[in-house]
């Protein structure tokens, strides 16, 4: 198998890897880098569980060939906050009960983050547009929407 070199920014750090060009960004994150926070739900861009932020925009990592990220900036759930320093979205998802099985959660949070990074006061329809590509089978989206609103409010205040 021929390997290619790829270099990109991952969660604000430079990474350089030797990769199989047949792998997707999702394959590399989960398989090679052990960043399993980004989930695989369908592998075809139909569920959003693998959503990451690529140069500021939400994308399905399962549809991004790894070489496509050459020189670009990728952000995953692992890069936005941890237990000591939660991102307001993570905090709001926890506090509002927006997490059930948790499998859609990282992708849902990344889609929401891509929105809030650009839109300080999103409307309901903007929030829904941002997360409509993220299937959640547990929550009915009610508490997720509440969490995104709450996080937006908190981010505005700080």
């Amino acid at each position, binding site marked *: 198998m021929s390997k290619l070199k790829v270099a990109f920014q991952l969660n604000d750090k430079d990474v350089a890897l030797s990769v199989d060009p047949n792998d997707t960004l999702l394959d590399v994150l989960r398989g090679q880098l052990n960043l*399993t*926070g980004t989930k695989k739900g369908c592998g075809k861009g139909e569920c959003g569980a693998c959503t990451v932020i690529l140069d500021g925009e939400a994308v399905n990592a399962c549809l991004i060939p790894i070489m496509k990220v050459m020189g670009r900036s990728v952000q995953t759930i692992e890069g936005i906050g941890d237990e000591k320093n939660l991102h307001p979205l993570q905090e709001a*998802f*926890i506090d509002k009960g927006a997490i059930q*099985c*948790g499998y859609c959660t990282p992708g849902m949070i990344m889609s929401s983050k891509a929105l809030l990074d650009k839109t300080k006061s999103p409307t309901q329809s903007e929030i829904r547009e941002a997360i409509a590509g993220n299937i*959640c089978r547990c929550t*009915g989206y009610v*508490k997720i929407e509440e969490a995104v609103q709450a996080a937006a409010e908190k981010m505005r205040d700080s």
Partner: protein
Amino acid sequence: MKEYQVVGKSVRRLDALEKATGMGTFTTDLALPGMLYAKVLRSPHAHARIVKIDTGRAEQLPGVEAVACFKNTTRVKFNHSATMTFTVPPMEAVLDECIYDDVVRYVGDEVAAVAAVSERIAEEALALIDVEYELLPAVFDPVKAMEPDAPDIHIKKAGCFLCGKNIPGEKIHLALGNVEEGFKESDVIIEETFYLPVQKQAQLETQAALATVSNNGDITVWSTTQTPHPTRQILSHIFQIPQSKIRVLNPPYIGGGFGVRIGLSAKAEPIAVDLAMKTKKPVKIVYDRKEDFTSTDTRHSGIVTVKLGAKKDGTFQALQLKGLLNTGAYCSFGAETIGVLGAMGLSVYRAPHMLYTGNSVYTNITPAGAFRGFGNPQAMFAIETVVDMMAERLGMDAKELRLKNIIKPGDPWILPYSCQSTGLAECIEKGAKEIGWERRGTLNKPGDTLRRGIGMAVGTHVSDAWPFCGDFSNAYVTIQADGSVHVASGVPDMGTGTRTTLGQFAAEVIGVGMEHVSVTIADTQSTPFDIGSHASRTCYVAGQAVMKAATEARGYALAYAANMLNEPLEDLTILDAVVFCRGDRKLTLAEVARHAHLHNEQFIGVGKVIPQNAPPWLAHFAEVEVDTETGQVRLLKMVAAHDVGKAINPVIVEGQLQGGVVQGMGYALSEEVIFDREGRSQHDAYHKYMLLTAEDMPEIKAIIVEAEDPTGPCGAKGVGETGQVATAPAIASAIYDAVGVRMKQLPMTEERVFQALQELQKR
């Protein structure tokens, strides 16, 4: 009402932090050194005999370490659902499948599996397996499958119990009074037949398992199962290995379930174990999304007929229900679901005469099994639509007709346990107020093409699996040397908040804050036997077991403290992890526990519960807008008023209700798996199967009513499945209010509504 410290509070979920930060581990995330990846070759035919199978070329592909098929794999018969572990004699569990058989019975049935060093190589190897099939006649229609000349999908032999042509298990017969008499006494009789679709759980994490076999024969399986202990029993049966040598656990998170993995995660566990035994290496299998659609249990499609007789004043006199469920190629929970359909259908209303008859039937489609609601949504779409029709026929308000006839404690009913609580009337009144019921029938002007309507429906469910099968729970609660509390329960948390809820019970009983509590779940090695997470039972049954265990542990701690303080036991209490007695004498629980440990004692409580059962109740209301030119139904508002008994964690309960309602909305309007004439699924991907998205959501209002049940832990009842029991009929009722068509088939797609509108116009 009793005052609680932790129960009834929406404490932060114990799993939320890990999940929000991407640190929670799911089966699909696991990897072990030297691990192999398994892929499955699946049948392209709906019914065929494998005449020849040659795995030679696949075995020779570099990187392939084993290829399994019926020729080299155990053919012990089993049932992939947990039914085989808790079907109580004289009922017989239907054991009708093996890991790989020489006959395939649906498109997607397992033919062979490959273990290889990468998923890609395993996939490549599948293409190198040569299979020759002899096609057999197939049948997809449940009615035709029972006809004498239909092909036999299974033959009756030891383990595979048939009670009629292609009918697995038992025919169900439930009766109260004499329906024929009841109909004679009725002034109005309505009889209608309803058609229910295949609905798919479509949980986000597909079926998955990782198995290792040590060289002394011990087996460990991490998997997505909702029932680790029963899964271990099934694996022990298949591989003829003592249960004590098998460990099954969740890692600990499961990406949803909704019933699809009660028992095995389809065949993920046995496929992985078998290949691990063949290769002596860890083997991981993750179903891809298409496999998850085609080759894991679905909700039963079927046909339900309702005949309702009432007096002129609205009193129900007779209710007859007939059910036929298509259980697909293997029985799974087919024998139980058909029973629950009847039992739940006849448990909502009081009528002196009732009769239910029903059976499941094999066909050559994807097996149907457990899915949130378990037969109940099928029953209630039919019954509630007929009740709505009855109200109209009698000239009564549909809400008043229901209030007049719903079961009250003490009424005779069909179930072998008594109804000891109901908040249904309160659910109906509160829900009606929230939706604005009085506006019903007044929302449109003549000529409007967008027409609005309001509808309602009610229902009940269970709080555990008894009497449909065996049901019991055990739990350990231990107070550690530092006074912190550890709970061990065999139930998984597939996202329903089980871990948190069980922790709340322990914290409440012992008298500590949640920060002192940790909970181990879903591991056959470190938790006592439990039948698992299903039947809305974890809070109600496992919760009772934890309360009992906690009570016992607390008792030991108090007795020990009484001794330390030299005070009478009855004067002691624990609050906020401090043992208080009269006056200001106190010891922290940590001091007591440490002292005990230094004197060779730990406070261990064991809770064992054989549960009663208790009915949760629900009333759903819908407001819709129907586009009469396209047939499209837009949901404007859903109200779900639920009597859940005591809500142990209200935010978790609301989440269950909201999520359930949305699944019910999908069942009502868009979710359906159709099989073509060759038995191939037409909806085998997320872009084909119409789950609702965030942009499709109406306003959803969950209302909690707390009619506590004396049998429940702190008065709690089941909640997990109730959310979608009556959603579809409420929406159907709203559609009728909007445009005057009675939908008798689900889902009520734009095309079906459009056709119904055209037929209405023709009349």
